């Protein structure tokens, strides 16, 4: 027996030892032998016994490069599928023997690495599915938890409710990914404290001292709970059943099963014996609130299996999946016409893909989905599609603008560098395009129809302007009135903002705050020669800038990853990437060291895409010249005598995967226009949508889902709603395997 194993191992090993050098010799050694050692990798020295940690690191890199087909590089002959498969299977097999988890498997589940899957193979129709997701548990997002607490009435006011869940706050990354979210013991402790507060609120009530010193009891106690806690004797069976049933309906939207009812009753009786009626009931109520089903969205696939062995989500599962995809509310609180999403699902009206599509569209169009978390209280845009808005935040990352630190000497206090307001303007920009639902991606990338200080309606405008006129208590009252009179005397409309420094913020759009004729109807056109889509919006430009300068590298990286579905390797450990501070030169010139051969392999993917944005400064203002020798501030008067040089906004699209758009660009506008016309960019947008709405990275079996979503987008005139409806009615969304 032992001998057989030895022979087998020797056979496998010798097979590899023969095969691997051949593979390496044919495809790798020209760049990675002892003489060339490109990127510090010498495959001739690589040991194949997988025992040495440094060899394992190299094998991890080899597997990653080969599986993502990044190596051999495009210009070299491609290995055939068989050779490819042989090598990767062998490495994986060796890893398995040593219980080593391939890092690429971990990465493939992370949002940052979604593009690791070959783009062309996803869209060329070679992958036929059938698509499905793996059965999964998806921990609630903090937004859903917030909404859930809001629905419990006044408990937030009466007790401290801690947010037990957090999600990734990184810029430009889909935050709520199912694989990343779990509840551990630290989360559990917070949850338990919250649940205890809620249970007290539901029973005896929480006593709280109000702002005026008065003690007030806050409670929301159903009759059945009141009957139990106010009684001196143990509750009857029917009271117990009713109380448990009430809590199940409240937190799970369903009745308990007979087993659940039996167990909960036992718990309640035991708890009452140990702690009395009130505390006993509270314990039982907490137990329902802590059920895994309350913390996790269960998407197991309890429906019928099909011929491929896939199981459909049950009606109940589907209702929750759709509800939390589109809103932060449970399905019994999402109305679709006269029904709720839950009743629709339960009555079999979501049985077909067509019906799901129609329902999704109806919800997206209904405009009253949940409470807005942005200030878009407009009669023109009643949309409260906060989930859609969050997609744009995750995708573009522009809402990070307020988190980018700008040295105070550059902006001064109360200077009008109001990044929060700029983000609101950007929210209005993207949601207006979402509402119009026509040629969405193209408009996102090229529209110059902007919102600046739009208050949502003419009524709000009149209200705010009246307030400013009458607010004699404001320190800047006289200045405000003088400004309004001067502007109106010139036959123009004043900016409805109080305080001269607040009004200066419009300068970040290159608008002269002293003389601007404020457009009461918005969006309005900014000069085509200055703005084109969200990537030229100050919010995006600031979010993707540094503390003192623009950040062409990260801007380029964003385009590479988000619009071209490509990826850039992590920065090598040995590189200490510092941009020269020598301001005698332009930023473009200061990036020159990245043109060194060893750097340019990666930087050519980023810099030429980011440098056209040099037509803007790091506050998002359009410019034709760059200030030299000094650090730029937002105050033009400080730089009047500064040495300047004209902007070179040229760039290049290199190896985009779409030959039609590759080549030099003269300006940022040419770059964006070209990107907006590319099928590759559209497909990349579809891929990122997939990740957001399904909460995971796509796999090859999702190829039909992506192709259908892309088609739905095109056939409906660039409709993002059609794209979402297609994704949420796809096999990838509905089936589990």
């Amino acid at each position, binding site marked *: 027996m032992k001998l057989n194993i030895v022979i087998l191992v020797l056979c496998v090993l010798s097979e590899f030892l023969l095969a691997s050098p051949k593979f390496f010799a044919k495809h790798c050694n020209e760049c990675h032998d002892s003489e060339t050692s490109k990127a*510090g990798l010498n495959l001739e020295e690589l040991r194949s016994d997988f025992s040495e940690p440094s060899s394992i690191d190299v094998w991890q890199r080899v597997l990653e490069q080969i599986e993502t087909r990044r190596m051999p590089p495009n210009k070299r002959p491609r290995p055939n599928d068989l050779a490819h498969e042989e090598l990767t299977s062998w490495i994986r097999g060796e890893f398995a023997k040593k219980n080593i988890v391939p890092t690429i498997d*971990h990465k493939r589940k992370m949002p940052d690495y979604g593009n690791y899957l070959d783009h062309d193979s996803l869209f060329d129709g070679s992958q036929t599915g059938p698509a499905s997701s*793996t*059965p*999964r*548990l998806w*921990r609630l997002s903090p937004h859903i938890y917030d909404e859930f607490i809001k629905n419990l009435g006044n408990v937030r006011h009466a007790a401290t409710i*801690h*947010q*037990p869940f*957090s999600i*990734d*706050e*990184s*810029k430009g*990354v889909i935050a709520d990914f199912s694989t990343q979210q*779990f*509840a*551990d*013991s*630290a*989360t*559990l*402790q*917070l949850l338990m*404290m919250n649940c205890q507060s809620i249970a007290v609120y539901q029973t005896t009530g929480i006593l709280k001292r109000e702002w005026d010193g008065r003690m007030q009891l806050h409670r929301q106690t159903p009759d059945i709970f009141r009957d139990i806690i106010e009684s001196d004797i143990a509750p009857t069976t029917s009271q117990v059943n009713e109380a448990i049933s009430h809590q199940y309906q409240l937190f799970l939207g369903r009745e308990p099963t007979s*087993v659940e009812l039996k*167990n909960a009753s036992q*718990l309640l009786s*035991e*708890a009452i014996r*140990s*702690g*009395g009626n009130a*505390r*006993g009931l509270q*314990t039982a109520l*907490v*137990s329902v609130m*802590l*059920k*895994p*089903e309350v*913390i*996790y969205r*269960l998407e*197991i696939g309890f429906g019928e299996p099909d011929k491929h062995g896939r199981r459909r989500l049950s009606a109940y599962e589907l209702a929750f999946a759709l509800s939390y995809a589109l809103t932060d509310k449970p399905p019994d609180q999402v109305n679709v016409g006269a029904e709720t999403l839950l009743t629709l699902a339960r009555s079999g009206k979501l049985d077909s893909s067509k019906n799901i599509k129609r329902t999704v569209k109806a919800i997206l169009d209904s405009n009253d989905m949940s409470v807005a978390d942005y200030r878009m209280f407009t009669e023109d845009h009643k949309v409260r599609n906060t989930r859609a808005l969050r997609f744009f935040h995750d995708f573009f990352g522009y809402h*990070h603008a307020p*988190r980018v*630190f700008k*040295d*105070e*000497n550059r902006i001064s206090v109360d200077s009008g560098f109001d990044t929060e307001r700029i983000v609101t303007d950007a929210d209005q920009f993207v949601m207006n395009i979402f509402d119009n639902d026509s040629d969405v991606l193209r408009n996102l990338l090229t529209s110059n129809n902007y919102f600046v200080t739009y208050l949502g309606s003419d009524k709000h405008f009149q209200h705010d302007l009246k307030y400013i006129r009458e607010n004699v208590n404001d320190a800047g009252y006289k200045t405000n009135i003088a400004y309004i009179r001067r502007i109106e005397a010139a036959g123009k409309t004043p900016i409805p903002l109080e305080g001269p420094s607040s009004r200066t913020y419009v300068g970040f759009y290159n608008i002269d705050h002293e003389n601007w004729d404020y457009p009461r109807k918005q969006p309005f056109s900014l000069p085509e020669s200055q703005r084109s889509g969200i990537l030229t919006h100050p919010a995006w430009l600031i979010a993707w800038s540094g*503390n003192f300068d623009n950040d062409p590298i990260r801007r380029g990286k964003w385009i590479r990853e988000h619009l071209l579905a490509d990826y850039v390797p992590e920065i090598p*450990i*040995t590189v*200490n990437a510092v941009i020269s501070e020598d301001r005698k030169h332009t930023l473009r010139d200061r990036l020159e060291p990245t043109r060194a051969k060893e750097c340019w392999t990666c930087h050519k993917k980023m810099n030429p895409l980011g440098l056209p944005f040099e037509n803007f400064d790091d506050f998002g203002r359009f410019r034709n010249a760059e200030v030299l020798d000094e650090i730029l501030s937002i105050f033009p008067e400080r730089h009047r005598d500064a040495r300047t040089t004209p902007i070179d906004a040229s760039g290049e699209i290199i190896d985009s995967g779409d030959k039609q758009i590759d080549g030099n660009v003269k300006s940022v506008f040419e770059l964006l226009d070209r990107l907006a016309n590319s099928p590759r960019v559209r497909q990349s947008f579809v891929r990122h949508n997939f990740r957001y709405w399904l909460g995971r990275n796509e796999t090859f079996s999702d190829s039909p889902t992506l192709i259908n979503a892309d088609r739905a987008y095109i056939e409906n005139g660039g409709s993002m709603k059609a794209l979402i409806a297609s994704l949420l009615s796809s096999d990838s969304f509905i089936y*589990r395997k």
Partner: protein
Amino acid sequence: MKLERRQLLKGLATGAVTPLLKPFINNLYAEDSGVLPKRFLFVVKSSGLTPAELVPADLVPSMVRPGEREDWPAELVPTKKLIDLPLKDHKIPESLKPLLPFIDDLTIIQGLSGKMCRGGHSAWYGALGCYHTGNEGNPGRASSATVDGALAKALPSIFPHVGLTLGGKVLTGVKDSVVYPGISALDADRPLPYQASPVMAYKSLFGVAATGKDAEADNLLQTILLDHMVDDIKRVRSSIGNADKDKLNHYLSAFDSLRDRRRKLKGLEAKIRGAAPKVTDKFTSEVETDRIEAHFDIAAAALISGISNVVNVRADTLEVTYRGLGISKHVHGLGHSESVDGMTPVEARSRIRTFHLEQIARVAAKLKAVPEGDGTMLDNTLIVYLSDAAEKHHGSCIEWPFILLGGLAPGGGNRYLQYPEYRQSGHHTIANLYNNFMHIAGEPTDKFGRFDTGLPEKIQLGPLPELLS
């Protein structure tokens, strides 16, 4: 119990113990043979720990040079040879004065590098783990245990790792919940949580010590609830097959560990009651310095009561403003040398450092007041003060200063050590120092984290020889 313990120890001698049990057995063995428990307290500040500010005052003229620009912190003059001086022979720097009473247990280490880490605002897990990870706003992946995580495993206790913090990730402000600052990990992909609310930290660590009839009933109800939940989750688990089993197991083990923890805490009830800090207004205060003080009270009590052997206090983040110290600018602004009312940025940073060291001194005094073996608890403790941004606001990691305090300080106290500069003969890295820590904990490591590829591997192996006592 005694017999069982002997049996266990006997098992150890015959090699019949699984590796998983080993740390626990080691602890038993230590207790049984009269060896005392070992404790670590890490204090991790943001925005760099300025090397020049740690130089004894009388040596400043020869060992410190002015900063590159006006208002920038002065810099340490690199050395080509190891400097090893008794601190007592010199004038302790101003901001370190709170530690003067403990000078026999105090070691200042300068000149170690950590170029295997990412620099900038934070090296994230790398600072305590010795590897490159993360980017500007994101900690990235924890690719292996950080040294506090590794110590938590080597020195097991009811709460193996207690993390206390003001904020979350480095660029965020004060938080009030459980957060993941991205500086500690128990293992690969197992980031360690930190509690940002002192009140919540108190409840979870010392809640079991509450007294009275109601408290007893509450404890009983908690037990009933936890038992019920464990059964309930197991039932759900059996009904969903293999779907995302890890997540449910995670949730289940959270209940299990709470249950287990309560049982163990019960046994230590009296000790916990004796050590638990008094809950004052500081615990609920909005003032940052109050919250930090509360966290240090909790840290001391967690160590003294024996419920934890490894505590990490994340002393601040970049968005924290030390209003309680009269500083009107957040740490980030100070790091960028912005002006601040009534003082220079360097003075403000020095004031913050002094405040941190006052807190450390308070903990040290508390530990010193508790007899243990032939000495005090401080003799069996090591307090480690560092910054996750190494030596400055945008750390380059080319030098990484440490302040060590406590009887466990490797190589004894009363020392000022400055290692030869990067790539000079005799230079070492932070990984060597962490090997020293693991050595102290009885789980010696030869290599910690990853190598800095710019240095010979052999100098990165093993503990710092100068600190082996």
